């Protein structure tokens, strides 16, 4: 199932196309963020506890300072992680950045503080009854994979892979006379190399090399190891 896209018309006549992030990407980003905020909160609690008590010990009545300087900031870090970071990072959080997604408005703009706060207020509803079940159901059932908070704030979660550097550099490597289409294919294969089956990637690599370097004898090509094939393809891209 391909991700839905929304197209925004612009004054230049060149439309902006945004790929909506699906439930998988959204969940991936959330899980990363959850781990980060939990670790940060626990870190504060531990360090605060150590400073307050001078060690890993506890008394029956730790005093008001403990609640105000240890507990309260711990809870603030845990519960305000999303709204604060989404505002400060203009629609991203560390988890969203790692997952390659970001928040935008329906007009493709960076959301302001108001919509981001509103989106986070509705986490109270989206997290019901547990583990964001309401939010997950809404994400699966809605056309643009949005949860209730996104509906209220008018925001969308879109894909945001920053692959510009590698794409441009490799696709325009004209030194070996590669066509842009061939360079594209080679870059795609190299990017997916670790995930492909050993035999399969060797087969594809030999087919590609045969096309871009027709002067290589077939016997020589067949004798190349997968590491050699990869090295030859990389050299072809970088010139």
């Amino acid at each position, binding site marked *: 199932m391909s991700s839905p896209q929304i197209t*925004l018309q*612009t004054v*230049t*006549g*060149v439309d*902006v*196309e*945004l790929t909506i992030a699906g439930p998988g990407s959204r969940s991936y980003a959330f899980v990363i963020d959850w781990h980060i905020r939990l670790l940060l909160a626990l870190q504060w609690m531990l360090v605060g506890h150590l400073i307050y008590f001078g060690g890993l010990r506890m008394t029956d009545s730790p*005093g*008001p300072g403990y*609640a*105000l300087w240890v507990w*309260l900031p711990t809870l603030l870090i845990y519960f305000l992680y999303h709204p604060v970071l989404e505002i400060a990072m*203009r629609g991203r959080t560390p988890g969203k950045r790692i997952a390659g997604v970001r928040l*935008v408005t329906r*007009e*493709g*703009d*960076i959301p*302001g503080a*108001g*919509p981001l*706060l*509103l989106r986070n*207020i*509705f986490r*109270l*509803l989206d997290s019901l009854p547990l583990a964001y079940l309401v939010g997950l159901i809404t994400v699966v059932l809605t056309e643009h994979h949005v949860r*209730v908070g996104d*509906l*209220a*704030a*008018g925001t969308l979660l*879109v894909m*945001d*892979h*920053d*692959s*510009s*550097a590698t*794409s*441009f*550099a*490799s*696709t*325009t490597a*004209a030194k070996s006379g590669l*066509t*842009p*289409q061939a360079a*594209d294919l080679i*870059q*795609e294969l190299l990017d997916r190399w670790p995930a492909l089956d050993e035999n399969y990637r060797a087969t594809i690599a030999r087919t590609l090399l045969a096309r871009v370097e027709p002067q290589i004898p077939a016997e020589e090509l067949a004798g190349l190891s997968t590491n050699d094939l990869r090295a030859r393809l990389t050299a072809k891209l970088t010139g």
Partner: protein
Amino acid sequence: MTENGGLQAWATSRIAAWGDLGSILDGLERKRDHTVTETLRAIELYRALGRDLSIVRRTLPASRMTRALAQSYARLHAVIYRKPHNWRERLRSLFREEIPQVVRELRGPIQFVALVFALAAAAGWWLIGTYPELVGLVASEQMIDGVEEGRLWTEDIVNVAPSSVISVGILANNITVSIVAFVLGVFFGLGTFYIIAMNGFMLGAIFAFTHQHGMAGELLKFVLAHGLVELSVICIAGAAGMMLGEALIRPTHETRRESFRHAASKTSKVLLLCALLLVVCGFIEGYVSPDPAFPMISRVVIGFGWWVVMLGALSGRLFGSGRSQAKA
């Protein structure tokens, strides 16, 4: 020159411009205030990227270059069309004009929610007054035992924890209840109705129970300083939630989704003011209400005084709304 050769030559000529795109976009996104030069450069880049994107979309559809250019173009589009930002002016406008406007529109729902609250309180009073044995529905055993021994549960609050801790706990709880009352309006207003009715019922029931033991006056003395504003704010948050429900039942825009988004965006503004009011209520409830040193008259002055401040804030007069309109 072949078509591919021409395309390759063109792409090579543009690589220098594309290579810096990532850092340029990061810089543009990070800054909120741009100089005229930076703005004009961004607009020129936007036009240039649009031209490049239109070429690669025709000649290299679904290629990595196209995807990368499209991503950069979308990011630049977001930066250029980002709304102007002046947080001082934004806050001024919010408290002087936008929130008072929303409150005026919420007048009807506020009255309705207040009526629901009052009726629920009356129902709670009647139920416990008629069937005192049902007080366990609204009060814990500890509270019940204390009242039967002639001691309100509020008397021991400052012995359990310091006032600062109590205040923070109370204001956090009240803000959460207000947000829940708002958010549950999504269920066509029924969720909000339930929250408001339950809170009203519990208040009426508790007062009936304490009245049966001659302690209603003590409880009133406790709640007076913070209760007026606290209850008013919960009714306002409930009214905002009702508006959410109404937007879903009777859409004001083309689609229910758009209607809901519009209602949520408009009514949520008032929650900001509600939260600020509840912060002060939390500190009053932590420092003033449980302290026997404050006589009744002080509590009346604080309670009604803070309520008048609340009215001024809701109407915008506290933030100079009347003066700014006169100047305009």
